[in-house]
């Protein structure tokens, strides 16, 4: 397993956001984790990236225990995150955002990678010198994904990539995620949009109030009565 999380707990002050989460992601897999707002999805991803303290449990990446590792060391190991709400560097140009995505790689072939990103996301090339903050929501999301890919991740963490986007753009983003999966990228996708996420996922987890309540293949979960009731409104 590329990513193995066991018994992970995390607190915000006295409030326990994660109550012992177990999740695994295998090499090349696309794993979706769905759940309502406040279920602890973002906390989990931040814990994996090392920007949210965890109180107990372990995170292993490629067999190595990274539970207490500094965030930058995790990026160097190959964990990249597209954070909730995109969080692009608004005043900096699109191209500088991409460069900072490769910050940990110390300059090797960054220009070639930027070209590759422009080929994959042509709109970013058009806007390369504009401040990232002037991009539309969908464009910012593409930039956030491209920025994360600049670090050559072995594991890509996506936090609510469809949040706040128009339906047409949501479809576009999920198409991009499928393309990335097709290229062999290992992806851990966290979504409120359970239907779209489970439809493209190899496996899925359903979380409620900081705990995993269901694990199954994406298609099985989509067919599951409880999931349909709670998350798909059917």
């Amino acid at each position, binding site marked *: 397993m590329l990513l193995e999380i066991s018994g992970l707990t995390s607190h915000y002050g006295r409030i326990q956001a994660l109550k012992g989460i177990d999740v695994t992601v295998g090499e090349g897999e696309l794993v979706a984790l769905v759940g309502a707002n406040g279920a602890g999805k973002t906390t989990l991803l931040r814990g994996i*990236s*090392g*920007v949210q303290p965890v109180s107990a449990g372990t995170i292993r990446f490629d067999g190595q225990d990274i539970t207490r590792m*500094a*965030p*930058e060391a*995790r*990026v*160097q190991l190959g964990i*990249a*995150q597209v*954070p909730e709400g995109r*969080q*692009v*560097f*608004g*005043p*900096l140009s699109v191209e*500088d955002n991409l*460069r*900072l*995505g490769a*910050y*940990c790689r110390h*300059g090797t072939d960054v220009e070639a990678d930027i070209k590759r990103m422009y080929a994959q996301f042509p709109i970013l090339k058009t806007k390369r010198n504009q*401040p990232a*903050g*002037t*991009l*539309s*929501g969908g464009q*910012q999301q593409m930039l956030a994904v491209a*920025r*994360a890919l600049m*670090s050559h991740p072995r594991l890509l963490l996506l936090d609510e990539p469809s949040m*706040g986007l128009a339906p047409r753009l949501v479809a576009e983003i999920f198409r991009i995620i499928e393309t990335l999966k097709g290229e062999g990228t290992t992806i851990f996708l966290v979504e409120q949009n359970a239907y779209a996420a489970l439809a493209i996922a190899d496996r899925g987890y359903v979380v409620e109030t900081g705990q995993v309540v269901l694990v199954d293949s994406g298609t099985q979960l989509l067919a599951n009565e409880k999931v349909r009731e709670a998350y798909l409104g059917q």
Partner: protein
Amino acid sequence: MFAEFLQYLLSGITVGAIYALAGLGFAIIYNSSHVINFAQGEFIMIGGMATSSLVAAGLPMWAAVLLAVLITMLVGVALEYFAVKPARNADVVTIIIITIGASIFLRGMAQIIWDKESHSLPAFSGETPIHLMGATIVPQSLWVIGVSFLAILVLGWFFNRTLFGKAMLATAYNRLAAQLMGIRVKRVLTASFGMSAILGAIGGIVVTPITYTNYEAGVMLGLKGFSAAVLGGLGNGMGAVVGGLIVGVAESLGAGYISSAYKDAIAFVIILFVLFFMPSGLFGKRGTERV
């Protein structure tokens, strides 16, 4: 009439350049941590005092200057390491108060290491005044203006052209996202204190031959630098430079035309007036945000 005005303008720009450097120092630290470092003025003082004593000890000027800048930078880094870092989970206001304490401590140390006397430096290229359309300017003023301008250019190059400079800007804008890029935000904080100290030291050194320096010379210079930063829009580099020049020229004109007794008051009144109508300063946050 015009000669008089030009005279005041020139001396205003000279002192304004120092305020600009101090203002930039405030802006850099504010951006990386939202802390207002009230020990910024002490960096100016240490730069001047250290150079002065090193020259007195027999070092050539260039060596004394380099060493003094280095010493001040180390003081800045130490301030971050020993005073700010241990309180990193505290409120920003708490840390600001810590920097006020640090400034008092540094003044005290300066009294012990040096003394309470005024110290000077020889002018870098003589004292022969240059005449310009009826006004006179000492060559050192040109040094102050030139060196400050150069420092600002280098700083602009650093933030716009180097990856670490961009990483510092990114951290200022969004700390979480910066961490997710693998930027060591702690290192950014340390660098910001080091850079602010360097800027302060440079200003302190070039201005010492004109104004002299003593252990508490940093108090007023720091306050003026802070005013410059606030006037320009806290955290905006260009704003700090423009703010510094405005404060410098305003107090020079005020001292010349009204009364030198009110020169500090005039600068502060202008700032209050501007902030009354533009609370975020002249170049305060202009939104380029789209969500």
